[in-house]
């Protein structure tokens, strides 16, 4: 087995070489969960900054923009103390405190007020209103979550671009159902990268090979369920990560935690029943497990370093907003993040607990089966992932009618949600704890 760090470094070097060569108008980097996407963005930004190239960075949400600024600020300051990062925001935006302290960051709602920074960064929605100016380079982050019509709007702003993103996460969506653009290589409902690659087949596609976030216990299942053709490896090997507890316990929650600690996974199975989305018992179970993690003083070992799993290192996920609202109300903990898969994209925690999107359902819809949703929920953790579900999902999947319409010329999206769910469930079943 080669050294994962060396393997990852070779990929980064190849990407930066492509960047320097100027041979390509576009470069795509696929990144499985936690494979160092942000680190790459910062590396690439520095590379361009040191070459004196003005750079625009496009992210999808304000949070992502601010995360990137925080990561980039210090490195840029060390390399080029004179260079500034301009954060373009909508009018009335108040910068969060974490930005205010940074010496090389300017925040303004108009380009003119940024006073010609070396790096300009904003959300895609904000970039859409910038006119006339052209940057020699752009970095587009989370480009698989960006709709291609958003790319169309701002493509004139850059000459060359590096697109990074995770192909396994949720696809962008529209509130409109319309098949009229199906099969077109510029279908506005497709992701920015999908359209870019179909129109520019010569654009090189790199793949970050190592997930530094996911523990070894997640490697095979997440790779086979969600990255069936490319796969990835984890940066840590067997036994390098470990979830521990400072106190003992003997309840059903503790059985769940023990399984999770031992195997990295736990499937909490509630009695089989068709329920509402906001299944009260399941919501209780999710909250109880999250609470128990804190009560037991959970710790995370990574190599030889042991750190406490505080509330900010735990995330709770669900498919629907009403489920999130119900869990928040029952859990009632200000620091534990409870959110939908959409909003957990790109984030990282020690332990995650999620309500399975198919729990308590009799029939599945495309929404509930979407591979990206399950992938986000099952790949946010560094130590362990706990899944709460009603029994019966296997039968639901087996009985699921596969009558999805097929559109000529539409790229076939892999992994298939139904198949990914089957793979995931087959993996989880041996780690079942009855609730």
């Amino acid at each position: 087995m080669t050294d994962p760090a060396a393997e990852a470094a070779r990929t980064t070097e190849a990407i930066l070489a492509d960047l320097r060569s100027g041979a390509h108008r576009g470069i795509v980097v696929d990144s499985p969960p936690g494979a160092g996407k942000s680190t790459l963005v910062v590396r690439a930004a520095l590379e361009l900054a040191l070459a004196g190239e003005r750079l625009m960075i496009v992210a999808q949400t304000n949070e992502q923009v601010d995360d990137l600024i925080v990561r980039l600020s210090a490195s840029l300051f060390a390399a080029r103390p004179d260079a500034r990062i301009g954060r373009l925001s909508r009018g009335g935006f108040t910068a969060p405190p974490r930005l205010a302290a940074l010496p090389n960051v300017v925040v303004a709602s108009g380009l003119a007020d940024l006073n010609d920074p070396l790096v300009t960064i904003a959300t895609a929605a904000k970039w859409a209103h910038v006119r006339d100016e052209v940057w020699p380079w752009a970095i587009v982050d989370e480009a698989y979550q960006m709709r291609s019509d958003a790319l169309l709007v701002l493509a004139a702003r850059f000459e060359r671009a590096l697109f990074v993103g995770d192909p396994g996460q949720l696809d962008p969506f529209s509130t409109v159902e319309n098949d009229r653009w199906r099969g077109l290589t510029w279908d506005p409902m497709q992701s920015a990268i999908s359209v870019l690659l179909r129109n520019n087949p010569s654009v090189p596609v790199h793949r970050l090979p190592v997930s530094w976030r996911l523990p070894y216990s997640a490697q095979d299942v997440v790779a086979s369920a969600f990255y069936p053709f490319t796969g990835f490896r984890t940066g840590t090997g067997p036994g390098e990560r470990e979830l521990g507890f400072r106190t003992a316990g003997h309840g059903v929650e503790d059985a769940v935690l023990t399984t999770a600690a031992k195997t990295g996974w736990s499937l909490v199975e509630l009695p089989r029943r068709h329920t509402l989305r906001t299944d009260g018992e399941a919501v209780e179970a999710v909250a109880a497990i999250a609470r128990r993690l804190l009560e037991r003083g959970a710790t995370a070992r990574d190599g030889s370093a042991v750190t406490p799993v505080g509330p900010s290192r735990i995330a709770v996920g669900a498919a629907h907003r009403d489920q999130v609202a119900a869990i928040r109300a029952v859990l009632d903990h200000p620091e534990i993040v409870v959110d939908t898969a959409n909003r957990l994209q790109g984030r990282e925690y020690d332990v995650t607990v999620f309500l399975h999107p198919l729990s308590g359902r009799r029939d599945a819809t495309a929404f509930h089966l979407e591979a990206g949703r399950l992938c986000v929920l099952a790949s946010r953790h560094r130590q362990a992932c706990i899944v709460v579900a009603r029994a019966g999902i296997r039968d639901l999947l087996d009985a699921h009618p596969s009558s999805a319409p097929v559109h000529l010329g539409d790229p076939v999206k892999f992994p298939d949600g139904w198949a990914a769910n089957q793979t995931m469930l087959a993996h989880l079943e041996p780690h079942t704890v009855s609730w």
Partner: protein
Amino acid sequence: MSAIAAYARALAVVEGVAQPITTVAHVHVAARPLVLVPLALAGEANAPLAAMVGTDPASPRLLIVPQPRDRQLRFAFAASLADVVLSYLDEFPVALAGEEPVAADAPQLWVPNRGGLAFLRLFGRSTRFRRTTGEYPVAPGVPVLGRWLTWFAERSEYPGASALLAATEVLGAHWATGQSALEDANLAALLGWIDPPAGSSAREAAREAEDPTVWPPAGPSTDPSFDNEVLAPAIAAYAEAPERSTARLERALRGQTFPTWELTWRAIELMRTLTPGGSVAVRWAADCRQYAGFHRWMAEDGLPQARRDGAVAAARRLLRLEWAQQEYTVSRSFDDPRVMADFRVTGEAFRGTVTEVDAERRVENENGNLVKRPLVVVRTEDPVHLAVGTAVGSPSRPKQSGRVLETDAGLVTVEIAKGLREALPRVGDDVTYSSVLSSGGRGPNLPPVEDTPWTHGGPPEPYVPTDEDAGETWE
């Protein structure tokens, strides 16, 4: 499927009749619509077989293609249909107000079902590129009809547009039946539930509607046994002796279209019994503007619409469709408490009684100035799932809006921030607040077509209609 619509379907089963899921009409119903009942030949790509068409329920006009595989006869049919449709359009003149084309009213087409919409779209596609000169000349009206039908079909994709309506879709948006949505696609069955004939239950009427010998399918697909037993011999007879056999074919096709013609008019009559919602006129005005704009385009240049949207056109259309979708959702809920009811079930809106109003409350804003921010406290039984800070608006005061400040045990406190010129609600008032609001805001600037970026394939070749398009095989 909304909770309200699902509950109404359950009620319909037990009550034995469809249940209204709206209190007003959410589409515009024209005073003089043009009804079109098309039939297509089975197995062919949208080959017209017949159409019953007209503006007067008492005097429909039947157009037929006696030999549907004959290209000449198809174009003769298209020419006759063009006569009917284009002279109907002439009833809606377009004038210029300054530079702007304006129309006081617009044409409205009704077809029986979604299949009818698809038929018009494809019929528009197969005729709009034709030319009146060259190798395969057609009558002057044919390519004009094609462009107009394409316009109507594209317009019908916009949520809330009423230029082209399908009876099943319109009825289904206003009533819930005691059967499934799939079965509602049968116009006769749907009307059987909404308005069962005397002496028959809705369920019986709906079952009877599935018998093609009682109720011929509403098209454009025909009943296979009709094809095999009636149509095929009649077409064969026509091939032998056209003059003697035309009447037989017409009789047969009239029998297949007339029941649907009557059903479509009944659907229109039913819709007329509903009061239009408050924003229907606003949306119809948009239809009129679009109509006037296209009318002008046809008068000036009138190139046929491209086969597929280019990258820029696609992005523009998607943004407009999304905008229309959001506006339609919001204005329907503001116009109609029963539509709003759905958001109350999901906790996105609530209705209740005002228990407290603090009209003079002032708070400091970002600039340190004191500004008026009144509070309204509402007691409600509804399950409110609104986070603190969520923006809300009220149908009774559409210009006034605010945000949720607190929710606690059936009491919701709303801070009013905008529209303070409008009177505040008073204690004891029955009010509704909803978080499903207009998105407003201007859309992004799309590049001109000639600047289509490399990411999307670069600028496309400008579309120039070709001889090949005009002479496209139609067999």
